């Protein structure tokens, strides 16, 4: 079957714009080059900041022959204050080489590309290779080993060609392909094709990122959130549809409110995952505006969305359904509005011996891609609060104490034992402790809910201290265990702030009413506190 008739498919014709190096750096930029290309065709590709190729196929019917197109391009560049080399040919590769090699306008009749390139220097291939390497480096994101290999290959071919006495592209193109490959490898065929001006890949047109923006002028100013929610829905719905068509999600949601005072209230919401659900976006925007209300009535609402590639999730039948990122994002925003930004998140253990120390981190909203869960294994669980003391006590003490460290009966072969837990008093409760023979015998406190009483059994003392370099001792009763000033939702690992020192003797006590407590004596002030409840 024959190919499509030439009358219906226009002869391929490409043009290339090259801005030669100039002492005047401001003489032109890639934006100008792209603007020139856009004047002639929507199909253009940016190769470098100074090199753009354009598909001008079919323009001959509008502007005239290839030379006229080239002249129009140069005229357009001159009108924009730029001196540019223009090449027009039947292959894109030929125009790329010719535009860099020859000043002014170069027009090659289709089919004559190889002949036109033949006298050009082999060094031109090096320039192309630089660009290819840049592209590969961007794609590989730093996988330098592969790029280094490619660089060695091109260098090797170019240097070998020079050693053979080759100086021009025509000489390289004229060599027998089979012999060339046998000596230089497969990549030699690619270089030979380039030397002939053959296209290795089709033009990949640049698509300008679509702007997702919608505005609404209000006839009557809005001062409350409830009517604003309807406006937001009306603006977000078409934006969401456009995002869906483009397979995009919102990465950042900008809400711009023009007030009746002619001021603008701008809010910026960085979304944890790409989303385009209207209800979720509207709820997040409203919650944010509830926390940061506008100072006056609103007479114009503008929504701008920074798009990002959509999220692709493959669900399975065998794993439990997790809340979607939209659900979790909305939940976290609601919790933030209700409880405060620092009152929810993920607990994080911190590297310190301070009793009860912890930090908070952000709760991830996307759990789909996380590792599969593993069953409980005793070897993976961190030591309980008693194990550290157990090790400190030493082997002899461990031998003295019978350790029925199992649930009865054993639930699973590898399940860890049920460990005793504490309930921390974030602010230690001041207590009165009677001591006899160096051991607490009675604990009382004025705090409601703590009855106190005689100590029936106790273990201790366990002396801990730390941060002696940070400041005054004796603030153990006042110092919260966590960071006193926490970042709202830290995106990275939290940083333990500098906390005051502590120096204490701890006791685990059991009182007559059956309750167990961890109490401590602050050694600097000789005051007693209830630190935690054993539960």
């Amino acid at each position, binding site marked *: 079957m024959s190919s499509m008739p030439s009358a219906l498919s226009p002869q391929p014709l490409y043009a290339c714009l090259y801005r030669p190096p100039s002492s005047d750096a401001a003489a032109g930029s890639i934006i100008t080059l792209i603007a020139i290309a856009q004047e002639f065709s929507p199909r253009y590709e940016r190769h470098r900041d100074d090199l753009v190729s354009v598909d001008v196929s079919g323009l001959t019917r509008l502007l005239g022959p290839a030379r006229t197109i080239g002249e129009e391009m140069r005229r357009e560049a001159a009108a924009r204050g730029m001196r540019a080399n223009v090449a027009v040919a039947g292959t894109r590769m030929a125009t790329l080489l010719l535009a860099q090699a020859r000043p002014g306008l170069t027009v090659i009749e289709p089919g004559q590309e190889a002949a036109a390139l033949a006298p050009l220097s082999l060094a031109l291939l090096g320039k192309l290779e630089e660009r290819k390497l840049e592209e590969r480096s961007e794609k590989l994101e730093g996988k330098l080993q592969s790029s280094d290999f490619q660089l060695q290959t091109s260098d090797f071919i170019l240097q070998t060609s020079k050693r053979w006495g080759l100086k021009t592209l025509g000489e390289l193109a004229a060599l027998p392909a089979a012999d060339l490959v046998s000596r230089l490898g497969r990549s030699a065929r690619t270089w030979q094709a380039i030397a002939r001006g053959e296209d290795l890949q089709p033009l990949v047109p640049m698509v300008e990122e679509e702007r997702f923006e919608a505005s609404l002028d209000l006839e009557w100013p809005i001062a409350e959130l409830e009517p604003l929610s309807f406006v937001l829905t009306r603006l977000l719905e078409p934006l969401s549809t456009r995002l869906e068509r483009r397979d995009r999600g919102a990465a950042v949601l900008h809400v711009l409110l023009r007030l009746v005072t002619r001021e603008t209230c701008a809010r910026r919401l960085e979304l944890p995952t790409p989303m385009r659900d209207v209800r979720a976006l509207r709820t997040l925007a409203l919650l944010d505006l509830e926390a940061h209300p506008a100072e006056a009535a609103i007479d114009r609402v503008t929504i701008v969305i920074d798009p990002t590639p959509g999220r692709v999730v493959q669900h399975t039948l065998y794993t439990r359904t997790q809340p979607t990122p939209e659900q979790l994002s909305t939940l976290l925003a609601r*919790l933030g509005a209700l409880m405060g930004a620092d009152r929810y998140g993920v607990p*994080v253990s911190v590297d310190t011996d301070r009793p009860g120390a912890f930090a908070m981190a952000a709760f991830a909203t996307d759990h789909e891609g996380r590792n599969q869960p593993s069953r409980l294994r005793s070897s993976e669980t961190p030591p309980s609060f008693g194990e550290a003391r157990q090790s400190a006590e030493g082997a002899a003490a461990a031998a003295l*104490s019978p350790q029925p460290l199992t649930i009865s009966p054993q639930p699973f072969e590898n399940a860890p034992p049920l460990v005793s837990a504490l309930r921390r008093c974030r*602010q230690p409760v001041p207590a009165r402790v009677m001591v006899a023979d160096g051991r607490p015998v009675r604990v009382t406190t004025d705090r409601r809910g703590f009855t106190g009483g005689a100590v029936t059994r106790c273990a201790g003392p366990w002396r801990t201290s730390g941060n002696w370099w940070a400041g005054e001792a004796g603030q153990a009763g006042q110092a919260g265990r966590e960071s006193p000033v926490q970042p709202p939702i830290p995106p990275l690992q939290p940083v333990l702030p500098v906390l005051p020192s502590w120096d204490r003797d701890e006791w685990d006590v059991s009182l007559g009413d*059956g309750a167990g407590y961890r109490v401590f004596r602050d050694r600097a002030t000789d005051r007693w506190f209830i630190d935690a409840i054993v539960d």
Partner: protein
Amino acid sequence: MALARADLESLLRARQLDRTLTTALPSIDPRDEHALAPSEISALDARLGGGFPRGQISELIGPRSSGRTSLLLRMMAAATARGELVALVDALDMLDVESAAAAGIDFERLLWIRGHVVTNSGLCRELNQRAIEQAIRAFTLVLQAGNFGLVVFDVAEAPADAVRRLPFTTWLRLQRMVEGSQTACVLVGGEAMARSSAGLTLQLGLGVRSSGLGAQGLGPRAQGSELRFSERLFDGIDVHARIVRARAREQEDACVALSTSA
């Protein structure tokens, strides 16, 4: 004129209060592994018919130092180990992170919501009441979000009167929200809260660990008040768990003896 039981039930259904009926909660198929949230404590799970029911409110109640927190952390660890998301509404902000880590909880799957309860409110006791109501609202938000495997509301150390002052309809509403979902909802307190809305109530008390009795054979009378201590160490707690309400189960009033280690 005395109303017949059928009349009362029809009246309750008419007012959409039929969940207060003892037979209203749907039965749980013990073969359906997704209907239960095991605690990974075989003795307890065996008595519970496989674990804590999903789609129902369960209660974990008991006095101070009765092992509520130890059992709760184990349940949370088991849930995160299964890959479920867990939310803890900690109304009094008393979670000990070290204990949670020792229990094996995967923190990445734990959403910890910390309440604002004032520990020494003095004359401003309304503050705590408002804080508990705020925690209830946070609890509601989490249940509304859905798809959490385990959601816990912890008011174990809250003043009993503050919890009692919560409207009874709160628990009915929560039961409605969680019903039919895959979420196991657990309330932790000093005493029963949800009353007729609760599907399962597990009463914890201190028990004497006896080598002569089988671990599951301890009766409710075998109660003591001692934590275990060795020579110089606190060893753990002997916990006595009693199932006082299991509306979706045949077995009620069963007891389990557990012991924790330090």
